[in-house]
């Protein structure tokens, strides 16, 4: 008898699912073609420019990976721009004492920030929005005063090469970093117990607890991971710009959140895709690049970027939210 009335058959179901999450790639391809056609004599396709896009998306992507974990767990981290700056300044200030010291130091600082955020969120249970808003201010204040608002020069070829400036053959080191982080992030979120715990905690906190998942610890870890990646981003900024200043990362929050959410991660948790975030980052970088190449003035750039974002997401997440009927 049909105790077993097949809940919607596999094929159909999954087809629908895949088709949806594929859309982001379609959008990316579409935009790329659009620019390739309209801008090819303006050098959009020049190997150099593609490198630019790669390099520019790299930074966004690295930060987006961390944010993907945070959002998947239904938390948010407003402090990570501040962490980027602090880590950058730290590494720059410590470089005279050796590269390893400096990098370790910067990562340690990042970890510390993450732990503070995590502790306040998971132990005391303050909404992460407020916690990270608060710590963002504190961290920025610290960065401003340790750097006295001056930009700290980075004068260390090896460091600069390894962290952001170098190219190995035609491939920018930055790009390798991104690949590493994204690949890791993707596997961790998809194929490890931790990843599942993150998604479960974000999807239904209580159910996750009943299933034996330590939600507090999960929240702790996602905030820690995010802070560590922010620190890495800061280090890479320092290496790429050969200097660090308190303003780094200040404008990245919105960019990164957008990349992640365009990529299909839910702002309210439960759903997250690192690959999607990578696509989001590529799209953002490509659009910035394309709009400048078009030679538009800033107002037009703003307007057009807005239009593109809306059109893109109409395609990707348009019907998803339509009242199921």
């Amino acid at each position, binding site marked *: 008898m*049909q105790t077993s009335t097949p*809940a919607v058959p*596999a094929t159909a179901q999954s087809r*629908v699912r895949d088709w949806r999450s594929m859309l982001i790639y379609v959008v990316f391809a579409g935009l790329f073609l659009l620019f390739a056609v309209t801008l090819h004599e303006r050098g959009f396709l020049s190997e150099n420019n593609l490198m630019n896009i790669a390099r520019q998306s790299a930074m966004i992507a690295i930060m987006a990976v961390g944010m993907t974990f945070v959002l998947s767990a239904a938390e948010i981290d407003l402090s990570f721009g501040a962490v980027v700056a602090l880590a950058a300044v730290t590494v720059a200030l410590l470089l005279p004492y050796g590269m390893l010291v400096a990098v370790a130091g910067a990562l340690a600082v990042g970890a510390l920030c993450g732990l503070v955020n995590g502790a306040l969120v998971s132990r005391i249970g303050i909404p992460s929005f407020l916690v990270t808003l608060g710590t963002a201010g504190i961290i920025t204040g610290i960065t401003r005063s340790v750097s006295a608002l001056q930009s700290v020069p980075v004068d260390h070829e090896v460091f600069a090469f390894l962290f952001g400036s170098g190219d190995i053959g035609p491939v920018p080191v930055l790009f390798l970093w991104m690949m590493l982080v994204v690949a890791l992030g993707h596997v961790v979120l998809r194929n490890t117990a931790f990843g599942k715990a993150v998604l479960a905690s974000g999807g*239904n906190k209580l159910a*996750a607890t009943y299933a034996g998942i*330590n939600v507090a610890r999960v929240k702790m870890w996602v905030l820690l991971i995010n802070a560590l990646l922010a620190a890495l981003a800061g280090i890479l900024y320092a290496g790429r710009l050969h200097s660090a200043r308190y303003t780094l990362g200040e404008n990245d929050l919105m960019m990164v959140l957008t990349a992640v959410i365009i990529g299909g991660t839910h702002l309210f948790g439960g759903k997250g895709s690192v690959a999607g975030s990578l696509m989001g980052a590529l799209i953002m970088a490509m659009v910035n690049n394309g709009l400048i190449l078009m030679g538009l003035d800033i107002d037009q750039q703003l307007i057009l970027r807005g239009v593109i974002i809306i059109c893109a997401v109409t395609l990707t997440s348009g019907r998803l939210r339509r009242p199921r009927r």
Partner: protein
Amino acid sequence: MNSLPILKARNVHKQFADSSVLRGVHFELQAGQVHAVLGSNGAGKSVLMRIFSGILAPDHGQLLLDGKEHSFDDAGAARRAGIAMVHQELSLIPTMTVAENIFLTRWNDGWTRFVDEAAMMRAASALLARYHIELDPWQTVGALTRGQQQLLEIAKALSGKVRVLILDEPSANLTAAEVGLLYRTVKRLAAQGMAIIYITHRLRDVFEVCDQLSILRDGRIAHTLPVAATSAQAVLTLLTAQLSGASWPAVNVLADDAAPLLQLRQSDTQQAALSVRAGEIVGLSGSGASAMLEAIFGLQALHGYTLALSGKELHVRHPSEAIAHGLHLLPGDRRRAGLVLDLSVSENILLSLFDRLSSALLIDDARGQQIVTGLLRRLGLKTEDPGQQVRLLSGGHQQKVLMARALSTEGRILLLDEPGSGMDVQAQSVLWQIVRNYAAQGNAVLIASSDYAMLAALCDTCHLLADDGIGPPLAAATGQQALLRALHGTPCQP
């Protein structure tokens, strides 16, 4: 039927993706009638009801109210036409008060209308009083028990002017007392001429309150007949439930010297208040049974008792520890505490197992799938795609997913909170079989349920839980006869 039916469905079809759930349903409902709708899990009962109440639109087919064709474009429309539904998955606003939830349907019309809090509270208490539901209108719904929420849902449904009331498995996890209240209410409403559709898997409900029953199968109404003209046995056959005739393995409680796998001791006088030995199934009933299981599972403080596993006293602070000690809990509230609706069926099943499934660092998907398919087969749930969202499963299927999770960790102690809720007759008999075998393999089971009969049939001992704590053990009848009677719901005294 003689008189013109209030609600009539003609040739209703509904298809999702490419699985057609309803394939031509014809259905009639008379005023003053309590019409039971039965059918196996996933038969399409809830879908049909969602169509009646305007939440889903039929692919084709008509709905007729008093003979006039109607099509509702949302729940509000159906509601205005006098059709109210109590959903299987509770649909309350946890952040709002009882009163605000009762009048939820009012919040859509006349947005500019003022809400007189005091009047609302008065009306709410009046309504609750009318149906003898003891709730504080000011209370925030998030804090209510599952049973209280179920009753609140009914009050909410009755808040407006209602001619057709749809109850989708209302008796699932209500306490015996609450079930009594439910029966009385339903009878009274029917007497007042309200037409009621009553979906259930408990034959007892059918024979207590319903006067007509329909069986939904293969997307159609297979049978419709007056309850008076039939018997539980007959209905079971109509449901084509093959209750496995296999007799249970004898209860083989291990030698008494072996320390019980699970024991609750009075924290003052180290006396054992409740113990479950290997091979034993122990029942727990009464208010606070669920809370007791959750306390054992480390979800809340265990007041007045200390926990001992295989003789060793220990303090479980978090479910993760409990699971590490070989316990697992099947939560009583499917949606709130059980399922992660965004995740797939298999992810939900493996949720407690992932860290153990990790070979090296990565999850061993192949093994995961093996385990999932194994468990699903054991529970008689063959969804062809464990990758689909659990959200889309029918209530009973979802319950099986949770049972599968509880079994997945292969612990030695199962804590089951209303395990049968939402499962059809067939599925339940399979479930009890599984529980039995599980125990027989030298494991321990502690079941919290308000279905005395089922407990009596299934358990070796039962405890009643009262405000003064855990009552003394009552030896309970066992064996298939009792089990069948339990499933019919005819009361059976130990």
